[in-house]
Structures are given as structure tokens and as C-alpha cells.
């Protein structure tokens, strides 16, 4: 499932090739909140990781795979009610056979996620 237009909507994007600043709006009616958690909608941290992957795909123009996450800190609990809009800053640098990705998700109040890892071009296996 691509999360864009389900879990979040992209409001704006400014990029210079090696970095990007994205503004997104969380969708409060997204079906993930039926199960995470019933009557207590909380953003799954892994959906923020998937959001960073999708935004990095926009930045690079290729489908990517997450090869490694060096460190991802989820520093505050996010909910679509308390942080309806978020800023995602992504900076890329070269890595062996891929890119090193540094990302931060925040709003004016607080930082929700700090992320560092490596992604590589997706090569679907043929089976």
C-alpha cells in the first residue's frame, strides 16, 4: 500500500536534488487508525518510516528499498489530531550502491522522528 493519499497528503515539496523539504497532512480517516489503536488513534512509527521512504523516492525519482536503518528515534507520539501537519526534511549523500538518507519529521512544537539509514534502487527479483 502506498501511503501517499491514504495515510498522508503531500501539501508542498521543495527540493534541490540532494535535499528536500516536504509538508504533509496526516489523514485522520486513514484505515490504519481502526487498528492502531481501537478508539485511540496513534500514528504507527513504521508508517513514518514508510513515509520517509516514499518521499525519498520522490526526491531521487526511483523506487527504493530500505537496506539498513542505522538509527531511527521516535521521540514523540504523533496522532492525526495533535499534529495534523508535519514537515519532513530529507538530506541525501552518496553511499556504496545507494544513498545515505538522513530525515527528520517535526512540526512547530516538537520533533517526532530522526532517521538515518541506507536505501538502494529496488530490483524486483524474478521468480
Amino acid at each position, binding site marked *: *500500500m*502506498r501511503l501517499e493519499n491514504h495515510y498522508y497528503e503531500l501539501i508542498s515539496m521543495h527540493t534541490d536534488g540532494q535535499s528536500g523539504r516536504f509538508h504533509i497532512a496526516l489523514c485522520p480517516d486513514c*484505515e*490504519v487508525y*481502526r*487498528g*492502531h*489503536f*481501537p478508539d*485511540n488513534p*496513534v500514528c*504507527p*512509527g*513504521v*508508517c513514518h*518510516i*514508510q513515509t520517509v*521512504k516514499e518521499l525519498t523516492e520522490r526526491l531521487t525519482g526511483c523506487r527504493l*528499498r*530500505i*537496506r*539498513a*536503518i*542505522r*538509527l*531511527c*528515534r*521516535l521521540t514523540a*507520539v504523533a496522532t492525526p489530531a495533535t499534529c495534523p501537519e508535519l514537515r519532513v526534511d530529507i538530506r541525501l549523500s552518496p553511499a556504496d550502491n545507494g544513498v545515505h538518507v538522513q530525515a527528520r519529521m517535526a512540526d512547530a512544537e516538537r520533533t517526532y522522528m530522526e532517521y538515518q*539509514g541506507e536505501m538502494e534502487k529496488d530490483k*524486483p*527479483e524474478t*521468480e
Partner: protein
Amino acid sequence: MIHEDIRTLVPQRAPMLMVDALLDVGLEGGRTCLTIRHGNYFLDEDGRMEEAGILEHIAQSASAVAGRHAVAAGAASPPVGYIGEIRKFKCHRLPREGETLHTTITLGAEAGGVTLLRGETRAGNALVADTQMKIYLPTE
């Protein structure tokens, strides 16, 4: 095999329930499984589970171990936990729809409601992913 309904051990529900069963459990950790079914929320357009789905499965596997300990200690419902940190996650391959993941959770130090753990996920004989994680389980 532990015959409890997984929903008594983790608070997540469809479409975010990413663990089928707790296979065994001890003080040092446990083992879980998940069969990746059609319609799984984290499948990409080629029928592969995305890394986020694997991470959620590992986190819920740890949550099931913690839930089992909490229920054994008398809790009426499983605790709601949050991922605090992911470190040294390596994804070796993306599993496909129809495959069954088997995950081993090894618990580490616990302090102030934060538990350090290691998770390793395999499908068949192949390593899918391994990671360290910190899970925050607020105590009542």
C-alpha cells in the same frame, strides 16, 4: 504452541495486526509467526511486504511477549507499547504474499518502562531482517 488468541496479547487490530501467534515464550524472549496474506496492509504492488511491515511485525512480536508476561501477572488487557528506537536494522530480502515469517525476540535490559530487544525474522531458511529495538511500554 500457545493457544491464546493473539488479540489477548497485543492491542493492535486489523488492518494493523501483524502477528498471528506467539509460538513460545520465556523470560528471555519468545518466537512468533505471521503468514503474509492477500490484502496485507504493507504489501507493495508486486506482492512483497515492505520494510515497514517487517518492522511492525517485529515490534508486535515483542509486544506479544510483553503482553503474555503482563497477562500472566494479572493484567486485564495487553499493554499498549510504542517503538522508541530502531537501531542496526538490516533488511536482506522482502518476503512475498503467501510466505510465513518466523521471528525470534531476545529481550535485553529494561529500565523505566523501556525494553531493549533484538529481533530476527526468517522465512523458510532465509534471513529476512534483523534489528535492535527499544519498545516503550508505559506502566500503569
